């Protein structure tokens, strides 16, 4: 039996041990490891169903796409080394790179691509992005409706040639869409042999990184695919450290347990003024716009275009960008951010004009008899709340309207937003998953879209979007989109407020990091070097 003295001695020993052994963090390994933040655990490693940031990022790293786009949206070869477009712009023939191999060593063939695309289209796969990514391919409707399991428009010509035929009405932005991380090629054998939880095993990929370990809710450890045919990554190991709390992530960075992390908006001012970070703080644009939705079917006054315009003209976006976001965010002059190829930098959004706003409201006959107005706020990020508070104050100041801000939990907010008949007005953001106009125009402003949360309806806009989707050239397509966006802005369909930016901290020993404006997935991390 241990004596009392013995117990004290043991306690002292334990404390001394704790103090002597330092942080408990393993010493710098000899292999190069790059440690990056991740906001949560991935829901699935099946790229087809990736709809959250962690799943999207993992898919981006592990899987090979037909084509890829850089941070400016420029398309370049990846799984396909080149492609030709025939049939009046409707038939794409991809010459596949014969060097491409799955992580298992099996060569990637046209049959694998066809199987992957068919699988994403099949409704039981549960891919929400299928419609927007593959909707333009001939035969998509038949697969979606369950009549067949094979996309008629996707044809294997030979093992290294894949042909995709498009519906004339849905050809727009095809290369951008087909390069999405959700369409990463999968090794059919591994998927079918892996059972229902095949994706959890991190198999079936052909991308630059392979999953080495997935410690649930702790981290992902990816090993560089040394045989990656486009050049092996320069780090041996990539760790995505899962830390849902932004404060914890910053602490981990400060303590040297992360090499790259995001800077929460609340800490931006402190971090940017703190000399210890020197030039570790990097800022780059993010293809995200924050906007207000004015929902006519739910709130009667918003059915009158004059009321919507009055509300739009009472928003001083320059002041919000300058004073609320201290110049970190830029005023938004359109719904599509400037990183979208062809986005109209000279778009004429309804300008801030309090006198015009008051006049419009008076003309509408609603002045002084507006029913109480509620604005729902997306609770996902603090900046939504900041915009909503500023806008509510401006509406009160200019139009004399009392707005009750309604902040609720994300799941409840999202379900109500999807129903589209709950919120009279809402504060929402939209981040590009592809640098393509369709993400904003087709999804948010087309009256036939399930994501048109404000129930905006204008036949001219729908028609222009159709024309854009059937345009024969990208420049022609962009022209249609720009016209559609201008009409929607004149109608105050949505009221854009600010375009956001990313702020990250990168350790000085990390080279080659370039930010991506996309919401899901990183810029290629193949070029990252860690020289401690």
């Amino acid at each position, binding site marked *: 039996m241990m004596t009392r003295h013995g117990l004290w001695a043991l306690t002292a020993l334990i404390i001394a041990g704790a103090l002597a052994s330092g942080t*408990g963090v393993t010493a710098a390994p000899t292999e190069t490891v790059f440690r990056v933040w991740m906001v949560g655990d991935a*829901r699935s490693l099946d790229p087809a169903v990736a*709809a959250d940031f962690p799943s999207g990022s993992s898919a981006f790293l592990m899987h090979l796409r037909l084509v890829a786009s850089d941070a400016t949206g420029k398309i370049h070869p990846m799984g396909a080394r080149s492609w030709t477009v025939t049939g009046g712009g409707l038939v794409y023939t991809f010459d596949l790179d014969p060097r491409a191999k799955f992580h298992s060593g099996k060569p990637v063939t046209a049959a694998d691509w066809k199987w992957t695309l068919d699988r994403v289209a099949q409704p039981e796969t549960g891919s929400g992005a299928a419609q927007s990514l593959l909707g333009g391919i001939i035969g998509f409707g038949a697969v979606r409706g369950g009549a067949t399991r094979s996309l008629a428009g996707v044809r294997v010509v030979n093992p290294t040639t894949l042909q995709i035929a498009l519906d004339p009405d849905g050809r727009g932005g095809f290369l951008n869409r087909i390069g999405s991380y959700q369409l990463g090629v999968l090794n059919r054998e591994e998927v079918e042999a892996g059972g229902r939880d095949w994706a959890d095993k991190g198999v079936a990929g052909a991308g630059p990184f392979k999953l080495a370990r997935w410690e649930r809710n702790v981290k992902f450890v990816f090993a560089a695919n040394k045989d990656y045919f486009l050049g092996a990554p320069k780090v041996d190991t990539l760790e995505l450290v899962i*830390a849902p709390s932004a404060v914890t992530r910053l602490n981990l960075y400060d*303590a040297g347990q992360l090499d790259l992390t995001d800077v929460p908006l609340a800490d931006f001012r402190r971090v940017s003024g703190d000399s210890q970070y020197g030039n570790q703080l990097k800022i780059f644009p993010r293809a995200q716009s924050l906007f207000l939705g004015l929902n006519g079917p739910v709130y009667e006054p918003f059915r009158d275009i004059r009321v919507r315009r009055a509300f739009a003209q009472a928003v001083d976006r320059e002041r919000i960008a300058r004073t609320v976001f201290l110049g970190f965010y830029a005023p938004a002059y359109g719904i599509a951010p400037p990183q979208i190829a062809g986005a109209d930098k000279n778009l004429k959004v309804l300008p801030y004009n309090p006198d015009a706003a008051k006049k419009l409201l008076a003309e509408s006959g609603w002045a002084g008899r507006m029913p109480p107005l509620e604005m729902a706020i997306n609770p996902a990020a603090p900046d939504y709340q900041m915009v909503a508070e500023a806008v509510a104050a401006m509406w009160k100041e200019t139009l004399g309207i009392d707005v009750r801000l309604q902040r609720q939990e994300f*799941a*409840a907010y999202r379900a109500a937003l999807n129903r589209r008949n709950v919120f009279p007005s809402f504060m929402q953001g939209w*981040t590009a998953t592809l640098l393509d106009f369709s993400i904003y125009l087709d999804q948010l402003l087309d009256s036939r879209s399930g994501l048109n949360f404000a129930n905006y309806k204008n036949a001219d806009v729908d028609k222009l979007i159709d024309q854009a989707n059937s345009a024969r050239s990208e420049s022609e397509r962009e022209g249609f989109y720009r016209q559609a966006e201008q009409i929607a802005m004149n109608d105050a369909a949505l009221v854009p407020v600010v375009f956001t930016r990313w702020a990250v901290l990168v350790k000085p020993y990390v080279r080659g990091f370039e930010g991506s404006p996309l919401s899901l997935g990183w810029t290629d991390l193949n070029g990252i070097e860690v020289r401690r």
Partner: protein
Amino acid sequence: MASRFAASLARYALYRIGLTLPLLLGAALLIFFAGRLAPGDPVAIRLGDHYDEKAALAIKKQLGLDQPIWAQFVRYITGAVRGDFGESFISPGRRISGIVRQTLPLSLRLTVLAVGSAAVLGLTLGIIGSISVRSAWDRALQVLVVVALSVPNFVVAALLVLVFALWLRTLPVAGISGWQSYVLPVVVLAIAPTAYITRISRTSMLQVMAEDYVRTARSKGLARPRIIFRHVLRNAALPIVTTVGLAFGYTLTGSFIVEVIFNIPGMARVGVEGILQRDYTVIQAVVLIYTSLFIFVNLVVDLSYALFNPRIRY
């Protein structure tokens, strides 16, 4: 005599276990409907910004969410009885049993360490307070107890991280990577229960010390430690044991915050994420398991009374 006692104890234990069954069924019912009645659904979360009616319907069908609510409840209960909570609604293909296996041991380890250290430290401080009543030590202890009970654990956590992880760099900021990473979360979880056990131990000890038999023991010339540990502590044990049992419940609920702050991949964090994402099957499993644990600890506490007080019979 001993066998009769054992038999009555076993009978009582069986009776109490029998009582827990309707309790668990009621809890299961409540957990199921509370989850379903809350606005929001897992399909909307799963599809996120790619929400599409057709895809949503297909997923609902796969998850069985298109079936009547009573059919879903029956499926849940029949599964739960067999210990099968099905699959996560948010992470396709992920079995709940796997999640529990991965996360429960860690959460239990944290809880047991926190309750164990709180019990040892709280009892020690309580004894010190009771034998040095109204001294400077005792008064300082009283102040500390009030402070420890008043400061919320997320504030304590932030302060400890600042001092030990960022300034002194002696302990890790977050995560579980070695025994050092247990120190801060266990301390944060243990602070309030320690204070509570200290207070109850001190009060209970003081009450017993005023009893006649203690005076008799003292007048017989028994050594002080013998009086304290033999006579006083044993008779003061009942409220202390009860408090330790309650501390277990407090620590279980506290872990919902502490696991998030310290980025610990335990079951409470999975539960929090499950709630935020409306992952019904995860919520049902986590809450039911924690409810069962709490009921079990209370049962153990009840049964332990007889060990401390032979007059208690079941």
